[in-house]
Structures are given as structure tokens and as C-alpha cells.
């Protein structure tokens, strides 16, 4: 059985107190709880502080480009269905430069988990306004207050067809681990939006502690399989909810692929089958 020691990668250099430490721990704990070995997990990241997750977690990983983790992650999963594939990135990564990939990944529904470390700021470039910064947010790139309305990740994901949508605050590591595990167990595209405070440029710890998110486990009879419920609870609470907001069991992308093998493509022989080749060649004769 793998332990935390097996999952420990390079020493993390995030600012002390950064929410990302908890998210990293949450992913590691979820993998351990699921009985996964590091070689069975692939963590595909974008760049920025959040992109370092693939550095600090020991497993297969790919630190890709800004906003580009999702296409890479989907292909890794399709190429090797035996892997648990987690994509991770920040709010700029997923909802800014990579938002096109995000919406298409949601509707494509490849069986991967996407964890967005949402700190509502560009941290590694030293504190610029991000897509999830609130309208009016003041930074060096919006000195008079951001003019744009913020991206609303939950509504965006629901609208794009994500089959699993969850949100959690990084300060609640137990709940986060539980939700990440649920997401990883979901067969299809699963979004976990994690509010992960940036202690240096946008410290929201106090804000989230003083005004905690509404946890859906405290909402009697909340039914996450109903899309109307999901929209309503998100709209009513202005996105300030925690838990699994929506989950349906629509078939994942690979189930639509004709001839998709039961075993990982990556480990199949690629020596050509002469009969198949002859049959294909006959079409040109």
C-alpha cells in the first residue's frame, strides 16, 4: 500500500500558508485512500503556482503549458485507460487562457478529474487581476477596479455539460479530500473548484472563515442529480457553496468510441495485422 512518503515529490516552494499545500495534500490523500500506487496516477498541470502540483507530487506527471493541461490529460487517459488522470491548474489557467479547452473537456466527458486551484488572482506573475477576480477588484492591471464581471466557474461547468461539478474551500482539508476522492471515482469529466487562498496577493482565509461556504451536506434532501437544483443553489448563493453540486451518470466519451479496447492502448502491440492492412489497401485498388 502506498503511503504519503511514496507520493512525496520535490519540496514545495509555495509561500508559507499557501492554500495549495492543502490541495496537494488532498490529492495525495485521495490517491492513498483509493489504494492507488504512484505509477497508476498521472497528474497533468498547467503553469503558475498551481502548475507545480505535478512537481511536488510523486507520480507520473506532465507540467505542460499555461492553460493546456486538459487536452494533454484527456489524451493520456484515452491512451491508457488504466490510469487515474488528474488535471490541475489555476483560475487563470482554466478559466482564462484555457477556458476553450475547459468548456470542450466538460462536454466531451473524458473520464478525468480537473482540480482548479482558484485563488482569484495571478500569483506567480505577482498579483494581477484574474478571470475569477470580482468585478471592481483592484490590482496593478486593474488600478481603477476590474471592469469585467468575474467568470462563474460552476455555472460555466454546468452549462458546458460537465457530468460532475463540485466546489470546496482549501481550508477544510478533510472535506476537500472526500470531494476529490468522489470526483476521481466519477466516470466522466469531474470539476472540483477549490478556493485556495493566495496568502501573498489575495489572502481570503479570513473571508472564507468568517463567511463560510454553504455546505450542501447541511442542505436537507439536496439532490445533486437534478440540474435545476444545481443551478438554483449556485445562483441563490452567488456561487458560495461547498460540496458536490451536480453529478449525472451520462456515458463517458470512451463509451462512444467504436472499437475502443478494454485494455490500455499504450500497452498493446503495434505490430501491424496484415489482414487488416490488406483489407484497407483493397479500398485503393
Amino acid at each position: 500500500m502506498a503511503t504519503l512518503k511514496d507520493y512525496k515529490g520535490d519540496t514545495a516552494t509555495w509561500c508559507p500558508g499557501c492554500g495549495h499545500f492543502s490541495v496537494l495534500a488532498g490529492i495525495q490523500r485521495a490517491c492513498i485512500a483509493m489504494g492507488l500506487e504512484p505509477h497508476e496516477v498521472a497528474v497533468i498541470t498547467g503553469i503558475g503556482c498551481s502548475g507545480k502540483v505535478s512537481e511536488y507530487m510523486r507520480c507520473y506527471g506532465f507540467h505542460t503549458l499555461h492553460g493546456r493541461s486538459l487536452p494533454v490529460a484527456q489524451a493520456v487517459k484515452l491512451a491508457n485507460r488504466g490510469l487515474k488522470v488528474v488535471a490541475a491548474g489555476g483560475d487563470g489557467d482554466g478559466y482564462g487562457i484555457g477556458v476553450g479547452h475547459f468548456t470542450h473537456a466538460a462536454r466531451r466527458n473524458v473520464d478525468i478529474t480537473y482540480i482548479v486551484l482558484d485563488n482569484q488572482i495571478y500569483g506567480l506573475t505577482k498579483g494581477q487581476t484574474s478571470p475569477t477576480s470580482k468585478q471592481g477588484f483592484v490590482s496593478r492591471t486593474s488600478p481603477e477596479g476590474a471592469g469585467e464581471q468575474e467568470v462563474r466557474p460552476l455555472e460555466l461547468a454546468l452549462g458546458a455539460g460537465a457530468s460532475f461539478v463540485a466546489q470546496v474551500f482549501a481550508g477544510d482539508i478533510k472535506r476537500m479530500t472526500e470531494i476529490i476522492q468522489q470526483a476521481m471515482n466519477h466516470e466522466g469529466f469531474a470539476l472540483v473548484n477549490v478556493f485556495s487562498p493566495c496568502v501573498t496577493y489575495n489572502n481570503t482565509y479570513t473571508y472564507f472563515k468568517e463567511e463560510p461556504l454553504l455546505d450542501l451536506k447541511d442542505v436537507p434532501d439536496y439532490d445533486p442529480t437534478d440540474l435545476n437544483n444545481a443551478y438554483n443553489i449556485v445562483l441563490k448563493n452567488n456561487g458560495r457553496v461547498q460540496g458536490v453540486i451536480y453529478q449525472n451518470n451520462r456515458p463517458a466519451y470512451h463509451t462512444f468510441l467504436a472499437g475502443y479496447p478494454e485494455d490500455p492502448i499504450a500497452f498493446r502491440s503495434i505490430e501491424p495485422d496484415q489482414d487488416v492492412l490488406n483489407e484497407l489497401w483493397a479500398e485503393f485498388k
Partner: protein
Amino acid sequence: MKKEITFKIGGQQGEGIDSTGEVLAITLMQQGFKIASYKHFSSRIKGGHTYYHIRASHQQVYYPGDTTDILIALDDESYEHNIGSMSPGGYVLLENSKEEKVEQKDGCTVIQVNFSKMAQELGNKIIRNMIALGSAVYLMGMDYKMFQPLVEKKFLRKGQALVDLNINALKKGYEYIQNLGIPPFKVERPEPSEQALLTGNEAFAFGALASGCRFLSAYPITPASEIMEYMKANLPKVGGVAVQAEDELAGLLMAIGAGYAGVRSMTSTSGPGISLKTEALGLAGMSETPVVIVNSQRGGPGTGLPTKYEQGDLNTMIYAGHGDIPRIVLAPSTVEECIRMASMAFNLAERYQCPVIVALDLVLSLNKQTCPDFSPKMLEPIDRGKLLTEKELEELQEFNFKRYRLTEDGISPRSIPGQRGGVHPANSNEHSETGHITELPDIREAMMNKRMGKLKSFKMKGYEFIGGEEKPVQTLFIGFGSTRGVLEEVVRTLQDKGEDVGLAQIKVLHPFQPEGLAELAEKAEKIVVVENNWSGQMAGLIAKELQVAHKIETIRKFDGNPFTLAEILNQYEQLLTKEVV
């Protein structure tokens, strides 16, 4: 007796010109003729002049020719557009709904026929082209019954009635001209041979599949979409996956993801897509991920000429991207070569763990050529390079596998996700041997040297000499891609006139392979680089790599259409005249 016949059918797009041309091309191929063909079309679905040109010969030809022996013109525009390129004594079958007559005009016999009326007589106006084809076949001196096998293959599943309708249509057109008493051409029949007829796109896709490619992700784009369509249809037959990506960038990113995961993978695109994919090209180079990128070039820049031909991406393919990216760029010039180069591309990508770009162009991608019957010998045997087995990895006993191990040849042993003992992060940032981010100057230098140095051992013959036995010549022509066909005929024409010329058709664009070529270039008095772009990108490459700028002349064309033989010969004459003055 002629050993060659050229044919053209012209009309409006959406009138079945393509499929009619194809029916004839396939049938002539089945009869043993070698085929070169060319489709002319524009960027719309219905309307606009289009034609399908076929040259059927006893010898393998790669150029459809400047002239036409038999033209079917389904409208006056097709007549006007194509009458200038008729061979003397040729026949024109011109659709005319008002009158039917035969006259000598523009050096040809123009036969005006009401094909539409004849189609109505058969009760179906869509059969018009087949009637016209029957007429053309009579003029070729061949029998319409030769179409029977193909017509059955195409239509029998839709019922015998449709087969009969097509054969009757061919017969009706055939007999109509026969009854006019017009003497047909006499074309000698070639020896039958096992062969196939396919486009460069089909050939590359087939070759990729045969070489173990099991993943394609791409975005639709002219003139490369057929590659994705072929893979969508056929990858499932070998347990592979084709994904239509949301954009060009994702097309390459997904292929990189699959490549990282250990699956031979590719993306297909054209120039605008290459521009968009450039970011991911750097990712593949930096993370040392094998991936194959097919770029079927079209007219640029911007949206450019979306359905027209150009060879303007040479610089982009070699240089695109910030920083220094290890890459290999290959350029096949015939359909047969597309198959072989597919197998080379996948081997090279895994051997050197870098992106391999294969440069096609619209003419090579979309036009059918005959190709010898497939045999596994056409492919390079599969070589997966330094891909380790799980057993080999476990023997290393590395807690953190050194995916980017510094080795003598710069190529590191590789593991893929799922393998015990190979755990590592692949990385787009500069990284250490274990794949972890670093900014240490020593490691940065070592890693740059490793990545850029690993291609030092890449050596292969970078060109093909055409024009007899390879030897130094007075005038050396240089080209790449689909120009091979016409340049071969340029060389033959000039050699027939007694000139000492030869052609070096470049097959490896990068890393440039000077071996052999340098000597030819040095000993030539003049180098004539023929290419389809404005700035002379190949000429620039040759000048830089071989230090022969002083004797390079260029023949360029960038109007969206391929060179004709006459155009090159004219420009060549002008070069000579310029010197005399």
C-alpha cells in the same frame, strides 16, 4: 499507337465532376495504366469552375501534363477555360442543349452533344456525366465494358438497377459518338499490374496506421481533413482512437498527451494550423515527447488561399517557436513516398524523442497517383527507440526515474505512465534529469546541449537525384514536395535538347543533410531552385546550408496553382537570356 492519353472533365462544382474523373482514373488504373491526376477547385461547395485532369501512361508519371487529348466540357465556361491547353488533334465533347454538331475549331474536333437530353431519355438526369464518359471512352479507343467491375463495386449494394443504369449510360454515350463515325485515338494497352490509386493524404494515413500509429487528434482544415477522416474511419479497426479536437492547438496537445502516454500519435493540419500549434511544438521539443505532425501546405498567410496550393511553410516548419526546439522535418514528393515516410516519421519521433513534421502540399495531398501494390517492405520496421520495459525499469531501482538522463548521444531512456519504476514528471519548464524544475545554469546548459545535440546522430540521404545516374551536372535543379513530377519532365526535356542537367529533390528539410548534395552543388555552374512561394524559402535554405548563394537562381510561382512544364521552361529560358545580356 499512343502509349499515353490525357483526359479532362470540366464543369461546375457540385455536378459530380470529381466522382466522374475518379471513375475513369480508377478504371484506367485497373487496366494497368499509371496515373497522375490533378483536381482544380475553389473554396465553395456548389458552383465555380472545377476540373479533373488525368494522364494515363505506360510509364509511372507524377505530373498530369500540360495538355489534354480529350476534354469533356459540361458548360461553356469549361470550354473557354480549358480549350487553350488542348493537344493538337484533340477532341472536345461540349454539352449543348440547343444544337448538336461536329466542327473543327481551335485546332480540335469539337463535338457538341446534348448529354442532358440523353440523360433524360434514360430517365435520370444525374447520369449525364456517365454518358459523357462513355463518349470519351470511345474516343480513347477503349471499351465501355471495362467500367463494369468498378460500377458494380460502387453501386451493386444499392441495387442491380443502378448498375444497369450506369452501364447503359456509358453505352449510350459510347454508341452516340461511334455512330458519328469519328475516328478514335489508338492507345496501346499496358501490361496489367497489381497497383493502387490513392492521394497523398490517404497514403500518409494508411502508412501511419500500418506503422503503429494508434492516436490522432486534429481539427478539420483544407487540405488535410481527409487524413483525420481516414483515421476516424479506420483507427477503430486496429484498436486506436481518433479525436476531433476543439481547436488546432488542442489537436497537437492531445497528440502530445498520447505520445507521452506511450502511444504512437499524430495530428494533421495545414499552415494556419501550424501557426496555432506552434506553442505545443515547443512543449513537445522541451518535454522530449514523440509526436508526428503532418502539414499539408496551402496558400498563406492568414487564411490566404484556403483551397489553393503553395509551398510557403518551409521556414515555419523549420524555425517556428520561441527558443530552440529539436525537430525533424521530412518532405515526401510522391504518394508512394508518403507511405514510407509515415513509417520513418514515427520511428524518428520515438528514436529522437522529438516532434517530426511531415511536409505535404495541397497538390500531393489531394491528387491521386498510382502506387505499386502494398507490401510490408514499403515500410521501415518499427523501432521504438529507447523505450524501456517495466522489467528494465525495475532493475534500475530509481525512486525518481531519470527520464531526462544525460547520456552520450543525448537521448534518454524513456518510461511511460503505468510502468512501475518509471515514475517522473515530464516537463515543459527547464528541468533536471529527474524532470523536476530547475533554473541552475549548469543544468540548463547541459539540458540545452542534450536536446539540441541529440539530432547530431541523425543522418540519412536528404534528397533524391533524378535525371539518370547521379553525377555532377552543369545545371542542378532543386525542388521539394509535389514539384517532383513536373521537374522530372523539365530535366528530361532539357536533357533531350542536350543540356547537362539533373534534379535534386530534397526529402529532409531539417536537420539539413548536406551529404552528397554539397558536392553536386559545388560542382554545378548554376543551381536553379524551383518552388511555390514568394520569397524563395528553399533557395534561402540551400544558400545558407551550402554557401552557394552566388550561383542560385530561382523559379517561383505563388498564384495558387502548380507549375506547368511550359511555365518552368519559359522561366528557365529567361534566366539564360538574362545572362547573355
